[in-house]
């Protein structure tokens, strides 16, 4: 790898637009989204369900199915725009240089195929090696994610594993080719809290060890707090705020982020009422003019009917809001 490539972010998304052309109208699932992830960096992508987080992930993978389509923007992976690649070139990248992990480990592994089959096929899809070598790599990958006696485990079917174990297997499959980028779509949401912690730890360890960039999609701020380096907050198809995790969580700039943080129960707020954001998320089919959050926002003014542009208020901190919170308080 040249030094020039090293300076490039692993992934750079610019003005991404993914729309779904449904019978009810055009659903703007991803709306002018831009962000980047560097080598070895973990970026949390936080938002409510339906805010477009997962579609963003699938857009990067080139796996948006009809009636959905990427209608604009760039997805630059190691400097190359993935939107220019054809399907077979994309297939060479998927699972090889960009891997993805899904939410429900019960559903992501094929119930009727042995773990061995599902791992070996993944090796063979990208490398011309014989089955024995493919199998050896599978064993190694299982060992990597902390699965004991991987040789025997290979012969098992998914239903013989617990949920946490299955997610470990999924991560092992994602790690088979030591990808440069992993997109993790809520991989711990379906797990118990203790298992969740183990998986988070495991994922973080692997990223650090192999210098893998990772996008961790979640609706859970506490997950992001413990795991990610940077965080982007998504609301109604747009990124509303981004920055270093600690900075964003301690001093949210966007009223939505502030509301989100205020609605999470935590120890230091014992005895105080949790706040809630009034109103409901607007339908992606009928977004209001201007800022999508204006109707629920107590800081909104008339000019919020204009589309706010993303502004970098402080180096490394940007927000898409005309009236951000506590700008004064930010160091």
């Amino acid at each position, binding site marked *: 790898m040249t030094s020039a490539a090293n300076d490039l972010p692993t992934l750079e998304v610019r003005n991404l637009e993914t729309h779904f052309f449904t019978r009810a109208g055009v659903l703007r699932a991803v709306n002018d989204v831009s962000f980047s992830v560097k080598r070895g960096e973990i970026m949390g992508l936080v938002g409510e369900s339906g805010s477009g987080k997962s579609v963003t992930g699938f857009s990067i993978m080139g796996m948006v199915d009809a009636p959905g389509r990427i209608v604009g923007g760039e997805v630059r992976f190691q400097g190359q725009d993935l939107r220019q690649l054809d399907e077979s070139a994309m297939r060479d990248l998927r699972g090889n240089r960009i891997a993805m992990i899904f939410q429900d480990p019960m559903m992501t592994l094929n*119930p009727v195929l042995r773990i061995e089959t599902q791992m070996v*096929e993944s090796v063979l899809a990208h490398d011309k090696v014989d089955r024995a070598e493919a199998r050896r790599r599978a064993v190694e990958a299982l060992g990597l994610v902390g699965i004991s006696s991987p040789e025997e485990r290979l012969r098992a079917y998914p239903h013989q594993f617990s949920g946490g174990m299955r997610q470990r297997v999924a991560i092992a499959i994602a790690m088979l080719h030591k990808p440069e980028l992993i997109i993790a779509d809520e991989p711990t949401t379906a797990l118990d809290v203790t298992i969740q912690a183990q998986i988070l730890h495991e994922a973080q360890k692997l990223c650090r060890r192999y210098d893998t960039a990772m996008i961790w999609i979640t609706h859970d701020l506490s997950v992001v707090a413990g795991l990610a380096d940077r965080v982007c907050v998504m609301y109604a198809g747009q990124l509303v705020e981004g920055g270093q995790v600690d900075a964003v969580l301690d001093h949210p700039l966007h009223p939505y982020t502030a509301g989100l943080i205020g609605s999470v129960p935590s120890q230091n707020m014992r005895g105080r009422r949790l706040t809630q954001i009034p109103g409901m998320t607007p339908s992606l089919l009928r977004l209001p003019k201007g800022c999508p959050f204006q109707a629920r926002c107590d800081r909104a003014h008339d000019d919020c009917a204009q589309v706010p542009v993303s502004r970098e208020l402080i180096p490394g901190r940007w927000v898409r809001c005309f009236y951000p919170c506590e700008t004064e308080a930010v160091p």
Partner: protein
Amino acid sequence: MLVYLIRRLAQSILVLLVMAVLVFVGIFAVGNPVDVLINPEADLQEQQATIERLGLDLPLHEQLFVFMGNAVKGDFGRSFLHGEPAMEIILTRLPATMELAVVALAISLVFGVLFGLWAGLKPYAFSGKTIMAGSILGFSLPNFWQGLMLILIFAVFLGWLPAGGRGETTEFLGMRVSFLTADGWSHILLPALNLAIFKMCLVIRLARAGTREAALQDYVKFARAKGLSPRRIVLVHILKNIMIPVVTVVGLELGSMIAFAVVTETVFAWPGIGKLLIDSIVNLDRPVVVAYLVLTVFMFVIINLTVDLIYSVLDPRVRLAEVKA
């Protein structure tokens, strides 16, 4: 489990027994075979001798008693028409029916899964819709008329295939079979297709529904995210998942395949047990009819029992409910 097995077995034997009695008594009530069988010009003494030889002079319950006694030994009497033991006639005809049913089953499975897979992957495309429309048509076509149309098209108009009969047969494992010669294949193709179409439509529906469901599952998305080729995703990940319900249903349908062979064999003059049954009903050949029915009921009881047992082994909930009951 053992209790369940014994109870289930006892029940099956009871069904078999009741069916045998019902069939025998029922058949007894039908017409008088004497009128059909005995040369009207024969004198009274000759007629009487024949009646006694066939045991037709005894009262119903005694005939039944004799019948049951013999039936247990596998003896269902001699055919009035052919003079040979009824069960023997049926057993010599059985391989033809079995061969037909197996070929039909294979056709319905292979083409049903292929078409169903295609229609499931492209539900909105013209090809997918055409397959579905075709399968609805296949459900609605009466089997016998569909057979006539196959003959009309492929035998009468196009002249590609023979209209009926079994063609050249060869010895295989002690049975006469068609599938080893080209002539045999040309004869079995149309009847097997006719028998297969209905089941094929069933398989198409199952496979399509399964494919559409599987295609939305996360494991298919995950397989795509692994960079697998569409070919491997469809032929391994999706196909393997839809095969479980398909094979279960097709296995269950084997019995009805044999029953429906009656129609196909009649249309295509296929010398199996189905055609034999119709001929025997028309000719009032009681022993053959009774032997056929007892054999079929027996086969059905076995098939149903096997299916029930396999289910109770596969599904723990079924097992539990049965043990408690």
